[in-house]
């Protein structure tokens, strides 16, 4: 993981050096070409001047021979004079019989004025060719000069560049490596810190120095993930604690009732009573386990919906009729109104379960002589079922939690009255399974509205 090859730091440095290498090579290449061209131009200029000097020294003797009077000037003179028909009229001694290129005629278009070539003695020369009037005849003069100086100078420059390049790359590599370490240091410390944040310390967060830079974004995202993780972890812990409490209570009751009955002896009637009491707890446990099973199957996501077109008003009426007697007992009015045409494509049983749970909840928590109103409608392509009661309402701090499992607004409510606190969780799951959601609205007026919102064309 942290081997030399694969750390981000090494890869960054290598990439950096590689890119710089390409840039520097390009730069060196361009510089060399430019340098070479300017050296050659300079040589051509001096050759031009030399030719002018030499032209002044060319003379024709009485016997028609060409003579070049170099006087006491030292140095190498590479000179040829050609007739315009292409015969060699003169050649300086230093050329030792070697030609400065192919024979040349006047106005030969294939013959450039300046060119480089290699003599038979392997010497590289730069040659200038120019027509020259000599007496009454036209001649062509060719003057050469050795390129050795130029080449030496160029070689020096190039070797200076070639030596400098690795040194520069090396320096850049080292600096880059350390710069990368500096830049990546926050990442390292974030990773270290993240490793320390385990299940027991989920409340800790990464320290973010600058929330606006890239590292800050990463840290922010990580902290958000931690928050979500902490939240679901807390929920799970609370759920486990609540579930075991709810399971333990009836178990404890059964156990103590049974143990006491065994101690006391007692008559048949008493024993019947004890067994009945134990069976009540068994019944409660059975119900609880049934609900938990539904929720766990819902959590696993493996709950195939048996879909059909469900007319919501009929379903709401059916659910209300089911619970009507409970409302009657409390002298509450329970009415269902709304749009007959609203249908959703859903699982009738699961939707009914959700509706029944919410209406049951409203009946349970509304006072005697209260009124509960169920309204079916639609809005923005969603089907709505609103269950409004005029009960005492739900305090703001509880609203977000009423759908949590085992959550009871009033902790003091007995299990007889309040159930296990799973009804609304199951209701919410049923609605969510249909791609919908339940909104809870408690305004200034007394009471609350549970609004089930279902997409009409879900699935």
């Amino acid at each position: 993981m942290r081997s030399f090859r694969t750390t981000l730091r090494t890869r960054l440095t290598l990439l950096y050096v590689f890119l710089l290498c390409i840039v520097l090579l390009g730069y060196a290449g361009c510089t060399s070409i430019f340098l070479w061209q300017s050296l050659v131009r300079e040589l051509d200029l001096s050759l031009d001047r030399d030719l002018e000097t030499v032209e002044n020294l060319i003379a024709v003797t009485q016997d028609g021979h060409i003579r070049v009077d170099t006087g006491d000037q030292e140095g190498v003179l590479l000179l040829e004079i050609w007739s315009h028909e292409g015969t060699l009229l003169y050649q300086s001694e230093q050329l030792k019989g070697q030609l400065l290129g192919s024979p040349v005629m006047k106005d030969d278009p294939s013959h450039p004025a300046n060119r480089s070539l290699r003599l038979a003695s392997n010497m590289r020369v730069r040659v200038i060719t120019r027509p020259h009037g000599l007496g009454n005849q036209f001649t062509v003069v060719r003057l050469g000069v050795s390129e050795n100086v130029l080449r030496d100078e160029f070689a020096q420059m190039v070797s200076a560049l070639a030596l400098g390049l690795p040194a520069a790359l090396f320096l850049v590599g080292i600096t880059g490596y350390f710069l990368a370490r500096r830049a990546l240091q926050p990442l390292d410390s974030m990773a270290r810190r993240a490793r320390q944040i385990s299940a027991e310390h989920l409340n800790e967060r990464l320290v973010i120095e600058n929330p606006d830079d890239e590292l800050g974004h990463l840290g922010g995202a990580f902290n958000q993930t931690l928050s979500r993780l902490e939240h679901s972890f807390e929920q799970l812990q609370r759920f486990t604690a609540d579930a075991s409490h709810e399971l333990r209570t009836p178990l404890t009751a059964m156990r103590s009732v049974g143990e006491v009955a065994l101690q006391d002896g007692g008559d048949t009637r008493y024993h019947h009573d004890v067994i009945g009491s134990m069976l009540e707890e068994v019944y409660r446990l059975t119900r609880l386990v049934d609900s938990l099973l539904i929720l766990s199957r819902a959590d696993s996501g493996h709950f195939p919906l048996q879909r059909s077109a469900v007319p919501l008003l009929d379903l709401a009426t059916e659910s209300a009729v089911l619970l009507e007697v409970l409302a009657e007992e409390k002298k509450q009015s329970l009415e269902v109104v709304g749009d007959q045409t609203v249908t959703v494509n859903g699982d009738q049983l699961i939707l009914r379960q959700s509706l029944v749970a919410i209406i049951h909840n409203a009946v349970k928590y509304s006072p005697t002589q209260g009124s509960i109103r169920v309204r079916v409608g639609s809005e923005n392509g969603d089907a709505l079922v609103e269950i409004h009661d005029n009960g005492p309402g739900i305090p703001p701090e509880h609203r977000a939690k009423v759908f949590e499992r085992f959550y009871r607004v009033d902790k003091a409510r007995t299990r007889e009255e309040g159930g296990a606190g799973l009804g609304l969780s199951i209701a919410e799951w049923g609605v969510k399974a249909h791609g919908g959601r339940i909104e809870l609205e408690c305004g200034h007026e007394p009471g609350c509205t549970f609004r089930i919102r279902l997409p009409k064309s879900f699935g």
Partner: protein
Amino acid sequence: MNILVVEDEPKVGKALSEGLKANGYEVTLAQTGEDGFFIANSHSFDLIVLDVMLPGRNGIEVLKTLRRQGLQVPVLLLTAKDAVEDRVLGLDAGADDYLVKPFAFPELGARIRALLRRGKTESVLSLKLGTLEMDLTTRSVTRDGKNIELTLREFELLEFLVRNKGRVVSREMLARDIWKETSRATPLDNVIDVHIARLRRKVDDEFEPKLVRTVRGVGFMLSEDER
């Protein structure tokens, strides 16, 4: 009536066999799928109660093999799984009914009676318990000759209780048979209790002896003799 019970859990097996014997059935208990299979093949039974989760050979396999051999005996499956797929699997294998654990014993009794009764049409037009009389065609109820007004649901409830007179009826049975509720998580207990209370007011308040009895922890029962 001979019943074969195939159940691996000893406590449950013993309770089932004793409970059924108390109801007047002859009971044979098998504790593994293999045993159950051989006993079912070698003896003749009127009904088989078969647990699905069995060691060795599970109930569904046993049932399939028995049905392939042409055995026509009604089979009641017992299982701890209540997902719809599991039910379908059991019924496809040839089961006649299906009961999810943990179940109430009265419910098992009712299901067994229903399976044994099957095919025999009954043409009862009226039911009677003591001085309580129900006319099923006119849907009228009288006690001591006095007319009692009942809602449709209360009538169905009373009919169910009278038909099962002397036997305990659990809330689950009422939810399933009267309210046609398939999910056990639907909160019907309060609803049922309220209906029973109303029925009791109408049927018992002004009359003696009291007929509607609550059997604590189990359910309700209609009976003439007070205990």
